[in-house]
């Protein structure tokens, strides 16, 4: 199981939208929902993880 998973998607006007967050599971019911925002340091950490060759799990 990947460290990160794309957030669930909404369907708007019949069109499924892309995920707007990536979810990091910290265990014991605790999660971080990280927006795709360049100045968010959690997102920067996620991008480093991707750069290292990892891929987030697909959304539910």
């Amino acid at each position, binding site marked *: 199981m990947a460290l990160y998973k794309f957030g669930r998607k*909404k369907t708007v006007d019949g069109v499924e939208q892309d995920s707007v967050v990536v979810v990091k599971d910290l265990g014991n019911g605790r999660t971080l929902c990280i927006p795709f*925002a360049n100045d968010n340091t959690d997102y920067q950490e996620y991008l480093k993880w991707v750069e290292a060759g990892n891929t987030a799990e697909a959304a539910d």
Partner: protein
Amino acid sequence: MSKLKTNTIQHTGGSADNITLDNSQNVTIEGNATVDGTSTLTGNVTASGNLTVSGTTTISGYHPTTSRSNRNLIINGGFQIAQRSVSNNTAGSQSTYHTLDRWMTQIQAGTISEMRNDLTSSDTGPWQKGFRNYMRLLNQSGIGAGSAQYAEIDQRIEAQNVAQSGWDYTSSSSNITLSFWIRASVAQAYVAVIYTSDGTGRHYPFEIKDSGGSTLSANTWTKITKTIPGNSGITVNNDTGRGLTLSFLAAYGTNWTSNSGSFDSWNTTGGGNDRFPDMTNTWATTTNATFDITGVQLEVGSVATDFEHRSYGDELARCQRYYQVVVRASDYSSGIAPICNVIGYQTNNVFGVVDLPVTMRSEPTLDAVSSTAYWKCFRNAGSGDFNSIQLDQCSNSHVELNFYGVSSGTSIDADQPGWVRSNSSSAFIGLQSEL
């Protein structure tokens, strides 16, 4: 009426002039002057040394050369605010925020306890200066002095706050001054470091010593002041990124040190790890050793002024730019706390918007603890329990929350309005945009 004409006045027993007069009506007093009555000075007065006034001073115009308010670049320097927790056991490799707002703890291995403790009147020094809290690192396991080890307390300062502080950081004649109270159970030389992040990173390390230049005594609060000059190699962007980092080091392994770096000067950090001379690591190998800090102030200028005490509310608001709690259900005896109004987007899938009390540094991360029936949605004279929460769209000042996964109760339909509360004392929602 007679007139005395002379150029100098000298005491009969002295060898040098006491008073000198020139032909431009200037008077120079070489020694101290004592005025028993009232003295009226109508021109400018320049005191090149210290000016001591034992009585009340009334000044009709006051123009300090450094800011008197908002002068402390450190947030939560008195360690009042601990939104996340007042204590935490921090184990393994960690670089994150667990307890006191704005103060990051970093360790490489082992277990430390970090905590906010109360000062008492027996804490001579900081108590009398109005401090009531301090931060403690407790070396719970004896983390060891491995070469890769470190144990430190850091604060990362937002770049635009440094860029617009008034410090000409590229000039070696422009200074910032750091002051703080420190106490440790192990008497050794500790180190503090200021780092820059933009451009080519620089760091200024110095050993924490008392005013006499001696290593700190064990278990004694000591006030430290350190004035640090600018440097032409420093870059600080005017943005929301990391500007300066202040680090207090209880331990630092030899992977990060060598004799190629120098104390009391700016070093180029670059990609290298050899940052300053090796540090004594007795603290690291001493089980239950403590390292305490309070009253941290970093200000523009060459003088450590008295700490800028702020109200709890003022300090909290400053912290909330980087972290804020939306709901911590355990704060309420019932475990129930209001969160937001919602509307059904689809069956058992509701959205609500939370307006944030303080604009955050960036679009924040949602930090949530959720499980079965942690959230209760009320609508149309009924309720249903949700299991899950997720962040949807957000800005620096508003976040959309999505609750879904009904576990019990009555379902909520699309277009139905309602509101959501926490429904478990373990439910938690926080928002973070730390540096």
